[in-house]
């Protein structure tokens, strides 16, 4: 069992959990994720690691309430235990020196962006970070990312902080000012990643995206997370989750992530009743 060592609500609906998982903490690398299961009848869901501490033997995940499992996770308290946490899974970010890199994170994607920014900075890159959120209140990890970035841009959909608009606007602006950019890293909503790759394509800038398909085992066994990259089938859990963004079939990913919408809705409704009934 995996004890929750610390838990806080970063902003409404976004929770940070520090979990006791020494083996994962020891081998964790930027870009990797864990599969987490709350209880015996729980679902296995992939969650990116925002941080880890090998000495303390803990990992940190940041989860946005989107479905029953993440809502339930939001209700858990310090000292509660999780049925299963497996990892670190997926391939790590290639933390090499590119020169100047632009790291873009949207929404909860910022959680995964943080260790990537840190790794790229440590590898000697000039790191320009662009973070996007719906509104100032839902922006996470600003200080942490600022500490490892040479430049930081913030965007909000409603203009309550930073640029009033999308992360892609800032990227475009950077490229239009003919700044030298050697690599772009993007993680966030699928549509955001797609727009970013469309912007960088004419510039032929290497663009890495981190994908978030539906997974079951997370170890290459089932193919639920299959994506099409350069026309070839890849499993995001073992071949990814990072891929060359210019080769990803985003439309397919959007379609495949709709597979269980009805069931997810049903589970949330049922859960809402359960929670109400329990109060």
């Amino acid at each position, binding site marked *: 069992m995996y004890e929750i060592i610390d838990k806080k609500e970063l902003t409404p609906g976004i929770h940070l959990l520090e979990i006791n998982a020494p083996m994962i903490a020891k081998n964790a690398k930027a870009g990797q994720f864990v599969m987490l299961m709350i209880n015996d009848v729980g679902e296995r869901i992939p969650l990116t690691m925002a941080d880890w501490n090998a000495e303390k033997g803990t990992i940190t995940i940041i989860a946005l309430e989107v479905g029953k499992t993440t809502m339930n996770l939001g209700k858990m308290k310090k000292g509660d235990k999780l049925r*299963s946490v497996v990892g670190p899974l997926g391939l790590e970010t290639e933390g090499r020196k590119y020169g100047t890199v632009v790291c873009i994170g949207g929404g909860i994607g910022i959680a995964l962006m943080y260790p990537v920014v840190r790794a790229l900075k440590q590898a000697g890159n000039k790191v320009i970070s662009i973070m996007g959120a719906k509104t100032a209140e839902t922006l996470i990890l600003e200080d942490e990312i600022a500490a490892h970035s040479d430049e930081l841009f913030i965007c909000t959909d409603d203009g309550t902080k930073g640029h009033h608009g999308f992360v892609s606007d800032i990227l475009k602006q950077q490229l239009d000012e003919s700044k030298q950019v050697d690599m772009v890293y993007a993680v966030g909503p699928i549509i955001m990643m797609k727009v970013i790759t469309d912007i960088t394509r004419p510039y032929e800038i290497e663009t890495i995206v981190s994908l978030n398909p539906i997974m079951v085992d997370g170890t290459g066994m089932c*193919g639920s997370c299959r994506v099409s990259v350069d026309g070839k*089938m890849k499993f995001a859990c073992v071949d990814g989750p990072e891929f060359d963004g210019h080769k990803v079939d985003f439309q397919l990913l959007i379609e495949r992530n709709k597979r269980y919408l009805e069931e997810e809705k049903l589970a949330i409704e049922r859960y809402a009743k359960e929670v109400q009934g329990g109060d």
Partner: protein
Amino acid sequence: MTEEQKPKKKRAPKKYSMPEQPPEERIQNFNEVPLGQDAETIMKEAKRCLQCKRSEKRKICVDGCPVGIDIAGFIMKLSEGDFEGGVAILKQYNNLPAVCGRVCPYENQCEGYCVLARLKNYDPVAIGRMERFLADWERARGFRKPELPPRKGKKIAVVGSGPAGLTAGADLAKKGYDVTIYEALHAAGGVLVYGIPEFRLPKAIVQAEVDYIKMLGVEVITDVVVGKSITMQEITQIYDAVFIGTGAGLPKWMNLPGENLNGILSANEFLTRTNLMRSYLFPGSDTPNRIGKKVVTLGGGNVAMDCARTALRLGAKESWIVYRRTEAELPARKEETHHAMEEGVKFHFLASPVKYFSDESGFVNRMECCKMRLGEPDESGRRRPIICEGENFEMDVDTVLIAIGQSPNPILSQATPELKTTKWGTIVVDEWQRTAMKGVFAAGDIVTGDATVILAMGGGKRAAEAIDRYLTEDEPWPSSEKLEK
């Protein structure tokens, strides 16, 4: 057959039958299909046995058993009503008898060699059912811990808790080694828990057999992906020897247009959602498994039968198997095919999909198939299917399950280049299950490619012998060149 082996008194020519849940009832639930036999019936069955002696000239039941069980021995005890004695013999050879008594293809193994069946109109002795009976009897009574030899003070890591790993782990513990099994998923059992459905192998039975193996002192640690959570280098530093039994967990695809459409799943995904994640309880459990009205399963093996039968239980109105050869070539066990047909699974032989179509919702709704005919036998001895050009047809379909086989799980070998692999991704071993890494052994589907539970157990058993030999005798490790051959 010589004079002395002929039945002295007349044996019942047919197996005593085992009651089963009727088909119309069982497709409404996930409970086990065969219901077991009572002591009286099984003792009568045991008395059908001729107690043949093995000789060089004549093969008998045990020659067909990949783990070499003293079959005549345990049947003798059973016929005398000495169940305890029967269990003791069985357990000397087989650590998972309740599993084997359910999923072994006995008809091709022990029962395939049964001398009684050589008489005209005689069934073989029902060895599988007797194994099942003894295992169930023992489990109901409660497992007794066998006497274990003194500990040798040597540590062995087993990677994977499927049939190969559990067998190797149990045998090594019985030899006095300290064994730790690492499992990637959150429950032990490998394919026994994620793949084989509840109605064929209840998970409580797998759990009980795993608990028995823990009783032998074997430690099972779940949620560890070796190669990710811990590397082989780290493991080889901690342990005196390592056994790899990571199985064939990578689904095969046909690479057809439209194969990534929603509603098209690998057998592994469909079965893992149902079995390991218990989606059949949804929304009582949290993992969904959407099933359409018309389900088509591709393939003809046991896994295909499992998929088609599971689909019915999840509420499919029609469950089809589309197979490119004919009924005669179906690789599934006869019993599984028989059960599937009884339950109303329909078969479309000599057909194979070529393309999938979807509606605007992104879910598959139609598939185009080609017709096949059988040509000359291929290397497997089965007649090769040949496409009949220009005779394509279409089928409406809501869910497609791809059950055409699995490849070896690549995570560990990708993370461990020192392990030599074949072009199919299987790990190369010698006759003693030794890999290219010193002190590291492998067996089961990761070595053979996808096969049966019992063959994996046989491999695990050989590996346990080999590990014992490696740790007690000072033999040189085979060179890479030797492994090439």
